[in-house]
């Protein structure tokens, strides 16, 4: 069984909710990213979503865009991201999921990308600009490398598409809490509860809620409704202005720890 599925099942069987933490690879450097990944794993991240920096991230808000700009300015390449993943997965059992725009996969060659990602210890890919209808080729390539291609649901997903998406999903389903781009929001949208309740009718695959979760309180509220909580922008916001690597990893660890406690405390 895929490492991500194993971890999600394990949490489910103990009645726990998963914390999925996002980090852009190479922001501000590969060395610091490696330290940040360790800090996340050691402080309660159940799954790590590692972002492949892309020049044109059209699903991302300003914080994640700026992060990608820094990573690319530091010269981060796709091979660097794979090495970073490889180094991490040799030391930690925390499953790694790659957040990657489809052009980076397509350009590399869909099959080759999946093989190299799997060899680097990656368990799944999350592709924000690849809807279900266009996913056929990646699904096949991912499956033959033992990777999962994570599905998305959004508040605008129609019932009929939701059925198909749920039926073909594995690992977790990335439920977008808002129409919009990534970034913090002051309140969680009540519409997300409807989305989660509808999705539950069609699948047992864990539902992960992302977009807009910024505080431990919001994380706890999200965890009460979903099986997993994805935090990206808020984490980057905590650390983006800190230059000292030790302070940066310290701040990241502390923030993840506070989220993890809030999520666990919710039950």
């Amino acid at each position, binding site marked *: 069984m895929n490492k991500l599925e194993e971890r999600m099942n394990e949490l489910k069987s103990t009645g726990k909710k998963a914390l999925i933490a996002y980090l852009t690879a190479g922001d501000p450097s590969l060395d610091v990213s490696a330290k940040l990944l360790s800090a996340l794993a050691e402080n309660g991240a159940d799954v790590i979503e590692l972002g492949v920096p*892309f*020049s*044109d991230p*059209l*699903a991302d*808000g300003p914080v994640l*865009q700026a992060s990608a*700009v820094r990573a*690319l300015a530091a010269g981060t*390449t*796709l091979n660097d991201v794979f090495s970073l993943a490889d180094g991490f997965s040799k030391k930690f059992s925390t499953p790694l999921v790659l957040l990657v*725009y*489809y*052009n*980076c*996969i*397509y*350009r*590399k060659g869909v099959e080759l990308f999946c093989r190299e990602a799997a060899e680097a210890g990656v368990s799944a890919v999350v592709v*924000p*600009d*690849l*809807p*279900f*209808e*266009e996913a056929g080729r990646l699904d096949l390539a991912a499956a033959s490398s033992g990777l999962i291609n994570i599905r*998305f*649901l*959004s*508040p*605008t*997903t*129609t019932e009929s*598409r939701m059925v198909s998406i749920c039926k073909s999903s594995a690992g977790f389903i990335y439920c*977008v809490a808002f*129409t*919009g*781009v990534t970034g913090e929001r002051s309140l969680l949208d009540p519409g997300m509860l409807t989305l989660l309740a509808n999705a539950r009718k069609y699948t047992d695959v864990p539902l992960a809620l992302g977009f807009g979760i910024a505080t431990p309180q919001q994380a706890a509220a999200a965890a009460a409704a979903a099986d997993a909580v994805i935090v990206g922008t808020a984490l980057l916001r905590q650390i983006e202005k800190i230059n000292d690597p030790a302070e940066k990893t310290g701040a990241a660890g502390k923030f993840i720890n506070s989220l993890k406690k809030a999520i666990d405390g919710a039950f």
Partner: protein
Amino acid sequence: MKDSGRFGIFGGRYVPETLIQALDELEEAYLAARDDEAFQLAYQEVLLNYVGRPTLLYRAERLSAKLSGATILLKREDLNHTGAHKINNALGQALLAKRMGKKRLVAETGAGQHGVAAATAAALFGMECVVYMGEQDMRRQALNVFRIRMLGAQVVPVSSGSGTLKDAANEAIRAWVTDCRQAYYLLGSAVGPHPYPMLVRDLQSVIGREARAQSLQLLGRLPDILLACVGGGSNAIGLFHPFLADESVKIIGVEPAGKGLETQEHAATLAKGTHGILHGALSYLLQDEDGQITPVHSVSAGLDYPGVGPEHSYLKSIGRAEYAAVTDEEALAAFALLTRTEGIIPALESAHAVAHAVKIAPQYEKETVILVNLSGRGDKDVQTVANLMEAEAL
């Protein structure tokens, strides 16, 4: 019936899940409107009595004589209301938006011609309009920024990336994802996710339909060669599409070679690009080995784009169209030449098509007819050209 959204392997819908429903609604609304006589009449009416169509097919006698070769005809899209072909698309889509009950238009713009067209459509139909524009383009097309604002639309500066058309489109798409239930995304070129490349092409095909009928009337036959500049490629696909079945007609799109195809500073996507995905479609793309979109350059803001419409990629792949490229310098020379020989100031974008005519016309006799799409007028570029001439004089 629903379209496959593909031109050969090109096109498709590479967008976030949130937009799928909006694209489905748009496709459904457009297909219904396309077959609805009342909608078509309303569109024809606005083209006739507001835009001022049909535009002239003008025989450029002095330019042809000067080049002492082929006969050059200009399809005068510069004579449209607002000064470019962009209005054909903007009004058609704004009518569609109105029919869909949307009250807010979101648009991206490069040279500002589409921004002006979208703002004009919004003023005419009493809609709200927000235009995203790269900061670099706001500087070099300042006149159009004023025009858009005077028309009552909001201009949002985009500083991300290179501050040009690509970044404006990213930002417009982000704004649309955020407000996709209320806003209508009025895309300005034949790019983007399905159904936009089809929708924009259909609306711009009025150029080619008129040019075809006018050629038959003027010459008693079809032209031998069609030329149009290609950035995203909407004026080109609008001219080309009605001629695709006419095998005797050679079709050439002209891309911006910037400072030269051998340099990194060009935006000749079909000449130098590889297959990739940008703004929701699979097409040719200027990118590096990792799939990062590379910075591009053209003196013309409207052509300064690392992607290209998927139907052009398809026409290239089946060999129905050829794509050439001309440099900034050649475009500027053509700009000056057309201005002085015919008293017509072309947009820098359109000057690329003229420049290729200048290049190839001498290879032919006057019996050969080259039809050039003069997609827009150059008022917006006068400052840029004056600055470049001044710099050259120093």
